[in-house]
């Protein structure tokens, strides 16, 4: 027996008002106005697939012992590194043991559900942290820009029933090219929507659903929640109907509040469904792309609350009508950034390796003799009353709350999101550091304000295509 032991999600705080996108493009394509309802999530300049995956994983693992995790997978088609394992960065940020098996998967929009199916197969060997994350790359003025969103979800798939027991799954693989993105291309190239609906979804989804129902020994009417992300309106409803699933079972696609988060979306919707489902409800999740993957779960009576979950992240939002900011954050416009932005961000990889726990894991030191907590860990203790040498043990700080000690809003230093908020923070149990702040408004920043650390991009080395990650302080919710 395998089930979902815990689930979590992440939705970036920024929510672009679709009306602002449509207004910007109305002169060229007034038809976009038809999609201009609600808002979509978008990652800040310092967020990517890896940082969002870390947040979703932390949301999922809140309060759990991470030592149980045997493997970790990250599904995405927009991961920052083509060759440097993205899941490996997530593993370091979560401060997991080196013995954890990690792997990336991608290549199709259904990779999130494919990863889930693989996790179900592998869970017998130990819990699998199955993450899907996507930072959508869409051409300005495209329909995709209107319908997409950024986000991530994480599921801990483990032996036992968990909160959702696995009932069955089925895959249909077919090289149905509704869209593609060639090597080195920034954006998708897509085919006509009506054809995708009639020949793609309508032929592949019912077949995969029927297969999964058969394996689970269920009838279509047994499904209480039907999850099929599809950016086109009405597709999920039509597919449910074709498969014989009750219309009221069709899950909300979060179109009005998030947008379609690509590979992450089936798992994001699943995490949302698991928050709401009552014990005994059957949840079917489908991932479409180069075929279709379907998995069916049954919600159990067990409780497992993510730290915030989809509903919590939905509430942690900042409405933004600044389409230019969205363009800049996504690298879609080459804005004048000033000479200060020219600073060479070359990362010595040797130093990153030596300091990986400090930098990626935010692991500090705790003196075993005096109990002094400090960041970073050093050979000689910072305690002025006891300069013990070599007495520090690892002391992870990422999940400890901290209070602002000093702060500023800097309009001179270079950042893509001015002003740069930063200052010193002191962890409640001890230890302090100078930290950049993220996801803040000027009124959030005051001495004594409680902050929570988040894994973010520190700087991007555009010359070499590398990015530095580190932890920043965000207002604690």
């Amino acid at each position, binding site marked *: 027996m395998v089930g979902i032991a815990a689930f979590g999600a992440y939705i970036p705080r920024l929510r672009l008002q679709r009306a602002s996108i449509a207004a910007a493009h109305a002169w060229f394509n007034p038809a976009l106005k038809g999609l201009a309802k609600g808002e979509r999530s978008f990652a800040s300049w310092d967020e990517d697939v890896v940082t969002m995956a870390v947040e979703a994983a932390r949301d999922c693992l809140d309060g759990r012992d991470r030592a149980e995790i045997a493997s970790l997978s990250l599904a995405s088609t927009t991961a920052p590194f083509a060759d440097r394992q993205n899941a490996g960065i997530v593993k370091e940020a979560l401060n997991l043991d080196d013995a954890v098996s990690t792997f990336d998967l991608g290549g199709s929009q259904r990779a999130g559900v494919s990863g889930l199916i693989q996790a179900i197969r592998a869970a017998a060997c130990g819990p699998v942290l199955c993450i899907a994350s996507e930072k959508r790359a869409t051409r300005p003025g495209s329909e995709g820009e209107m319908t997409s969103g950024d986000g991530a979800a994480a599921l801990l798939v483990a032996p036992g029933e968990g909160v959702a027991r696995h009932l069955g799954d089925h895959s249909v693989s077919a090289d149905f090219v509704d869209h593609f993105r060639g090597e080195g291309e920034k954006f998708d190239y897509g085919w006509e929507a009506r054809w995708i609906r009639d020949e793609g979804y309508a032929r592949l989804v019912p077949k995969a659903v029927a297969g999964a129902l058969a394996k689970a020994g269920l009838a279509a009417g047994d499904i209480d929640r039907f999850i099929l992300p599809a950016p086109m309106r009405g597709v999920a409803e039509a597919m449910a109907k074709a498969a014989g699933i009750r219309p009221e079972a069709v899950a909300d696609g979060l179109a009005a509040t998030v947008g379609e988060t690509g590979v992450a979306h089936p798992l994001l919707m699943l995490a949302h469904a698991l928050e709401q489902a009552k014990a005994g409800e059957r949840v079917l999740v489908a991932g479409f792309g180069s075929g279709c993957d379907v998995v069916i779960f049954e919600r159990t009576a067990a409780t497992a609350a993510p730290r915030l979950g989809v509903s919590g992240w939905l509430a942690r939002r900042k409405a933004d009508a600044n389409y230019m900011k969205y363009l800049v954050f996504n690298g879609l416009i080459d804005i004048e950034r000033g000479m200060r932005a*020219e600073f060479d961000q070359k990362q010595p990889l040797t130093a990153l390796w030596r300091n990986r726990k400090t930098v990626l894991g935010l692991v500090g030191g705790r003196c075993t003799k005096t109990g002094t907590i400090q960041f970073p860990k050093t050979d000689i203790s910072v305690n002025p009353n006891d300069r013990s040498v070599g007495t520090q043990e690892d002391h992870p700080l990422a999940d400890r709350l901290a209070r602002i000690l*000093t702060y*500023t809003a800097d*309009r*001179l230093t270079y950042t893509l999101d001015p002003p740069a908020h930063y200052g010193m923070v002191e962890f409640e149990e001890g230890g302090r550091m100078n930290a950049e702040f993220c996801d803040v408004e000027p009124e959030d920043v005051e001495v004594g304000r409680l902050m929570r650390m988040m894994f973010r991009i520190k700087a991007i080395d555009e010359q070499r295509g590398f990015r530095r990650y580190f932890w920043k302080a965000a207002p604690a919710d």
Partner: protein
Amino acid sequence: MPTGIKDKVAILGMGCAKFGERWDADADSLMVEAYLEALSDAGIETSMIDAAWLSVAFDAINIGPSGIPASMALRLPNVPVTKVENYCASGTEAFRGAVYAVASGAADIALAIGVEKLKDTGYGGLPVRTRGTTFDMIGVVGSAPGNFAQLAGAYRARHNVAPEDLKRAMAHVSVKSHANGAKNPKAHLRKAIDMDTVLNAPMIAEPLGLFDCCGVSDGAACAIVTTPEIARGLGKTDLVTVKALQLATSNGWELQGSGWDGSYFHTTRVAAERAYREAGITDPRNQISLMEVHDCFSVTELVTMEDLHISPEGGAVKDVLDGVFDADGKIPCQIDGGLKCFGHPIGASGLRMIYENYLQILGRAGPRQRVDQPVLGLSHNLGGMPNQNVSAVAIVGLEGA
């Protein structure tokens, strides 16, 4: 307990280039400008210099590595030239090297020269640069105003000061320095300003506005030091001697330990206490005649008044607004305009501060000369940022004072 430096070394001569946007001058020319003034003041020849210290902070974007640039620019007679860098406290560091060389007997006459050519970067403010491999991975690369601005919120929290009261005191600091700078022909900024100009200026780093920030300048300053005996032998009377030279360097307690609240400079307190002890000063507020402090930002000057034990803790706002540090106040601070208006060519600043104290004590400061004869001049030269810094305190005064 070391006996200290008091009265062991005398200043033989000093010089200072015109600070500012010196589009006309390379670092070499700036050094020559300061050096020739000092040489003439000292009444010696280059061949009499036994050793030299060169201070420069941003060598990578101006003179490049080593002591060679000073040796070449000044055509020194193949004497040892040591380049020092200690953030913005580099100037006092060069002075310390030269003074210690004379005190040790290793040199009869030693030279300290500080220079900085900052206006070859193409943009305003200090150049962006690496702070080391580890720092670049886990530190915050803020601007200088951003780093120092953090004093304000922490100070307000500690002393329960309303934002507008602190902002007004900070503005007074800048208005005072502009009034002083207007009287100084070598100053970078020579325009008097009013409170409204400061208070309404564009924000640079909350709560520091444009006029809370010092000028970034090109410049050089220079000191020639020797023993009091040699100075007298060269015909000097009214000697200005070194009373104290102290440096305190952060060891990470502020940044990584616990107890520091971000509202003051731990190192300045340490360096000041040591310096007063070395100089035999027991009541600084009543014994120090005038001060040149590291007013890189208005708020820095304000909290430094307390760290130097001139104002009581929490009392700087009142003292500043009462005019205690104005040119005609009880203890003038930045009577030459300070970093704020004289300018801040990093490697030269510590020496420029001593230059002003030296001129004032000798009554040679021209239109800005303090009327009642200054006896002891304190300079405070700070490098780094509040949570991680080098604080240098130098006290010079009339021999015997």
